[in-house]
């Protein structure tokens, strides 16, 4: 009857009460997504987003690293199917950790390795102990090719699409969920 005389109308009051809750809820959902992305490997706050994405690989030609054969930018640009290029080093612990996963992946997607700033005999020993997941292995002894690729450390992995174009990049060790959720779906889409 005399509702109009009440200063704050109930709907407005409810709206004002809901506003902070909506904001807090939104922030909560955003944080949850971020954290679940971190555990799945799809979001890495330390990743320096490689501006190299969707660009052809830079010019380079690297010598052989036993037991594999070296490769150059031309080799990657001549490809018709995707390959994974993986920078590794014998002195890098996360590289050891990702080897079992790479050994499983190699049957579905060829992996080309680049030994980063490593002694040839050390890199050879590392690859042999790990069970060699690489189809080809090149040696980047002075680390300057890696800088041209925007590599900031090892391991770092690039998915190279047909024509030698960099399609995906990670600066963290490869995990099984990364392969299932990101790498293989992307590689399959690049094949067709």
């Amino acid at each position, binding site marked *: 009857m005399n509702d*109009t*005389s009440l200063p704050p109308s109930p709907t407005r009051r409810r709206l004002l009460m809901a506003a902070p809750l909506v904001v807090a809820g939104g922030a909560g959902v955003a944080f949850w997504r971020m954290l679940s992305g971190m555990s799945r490997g799809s979001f890495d706050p330390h990743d320096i*987003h490689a*501006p*190299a994405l969707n660009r052809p690989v830079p010019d380079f030609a690297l010598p052989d690293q036993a037991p594999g054969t070296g490769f150059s930018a031309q080799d990657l640009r001549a490809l018709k199917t995707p390959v994974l290029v993986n920078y590794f080093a014998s002195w890098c612990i996360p590289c050891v950790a990702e080897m079992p996963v790479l050994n499983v992946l190699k049957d579905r997607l060829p992996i080309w390795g680049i030994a980063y*700033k490593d002694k040839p005999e050390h890199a050879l020993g590392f690859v042999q102990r790990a069970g060699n997941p690489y189809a080809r292995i090149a040696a980047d002894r002075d680390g300057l090719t890696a800088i041209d690729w*925007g590599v*900031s*450390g090892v391991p770092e992995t690039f998915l190279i699409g047909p024509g030698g174009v960099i399609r995906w990049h990670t600066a963290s060790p490869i995990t099984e969920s990364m392969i299932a959720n990101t790498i293989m779906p992307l590689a399959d889409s690049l094949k067709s």
Partner: protein
Amino acid sequence: MTTSFLRRGWVMALLACLLLAPVVAIAVDDPSEMLPDPAQEQRAEAIGAQLRCLVCQNESIEDSSADLARDLRHVVREHVAKGESNRQIMDWMVNRYGNFIRLKPPLTIGTLLLWVMPLLALGIGIGVAWWTFRRPRASTPPPLTDEERRRLSDLTRTR
């Protein structure tokens, strides 16, 4: 009272000294890295001081002793010796490592938003406050009806 004030003064002075002490870190740890031409070396150091070491992430490549920082110093010196401009060298680095490599980020929409965010938040706050407090006063309550008047006088009488 005065002693504690004095002591605090000392602490403040010490803090100020620490903060204002010029950071004269010896940039390059190996003299063989340096360019023979002092003018070129100075330029390379100035460029390097603006580039983030991507391993330590909060040091410039001139201050860092990480391996990657040494390689990046070498690359910078190569480019300087080739006679490239500061701008060209900076662009070369940003092309490979993104704006993250610049210790002084460029003014983009993202960074601009970061700077004006406090002002924006204040503006939004003032707007909300204005909207909340202004409206109730704008509407004056309608005069009391006869029945309400009667109830009011009843209530005041019983008291």
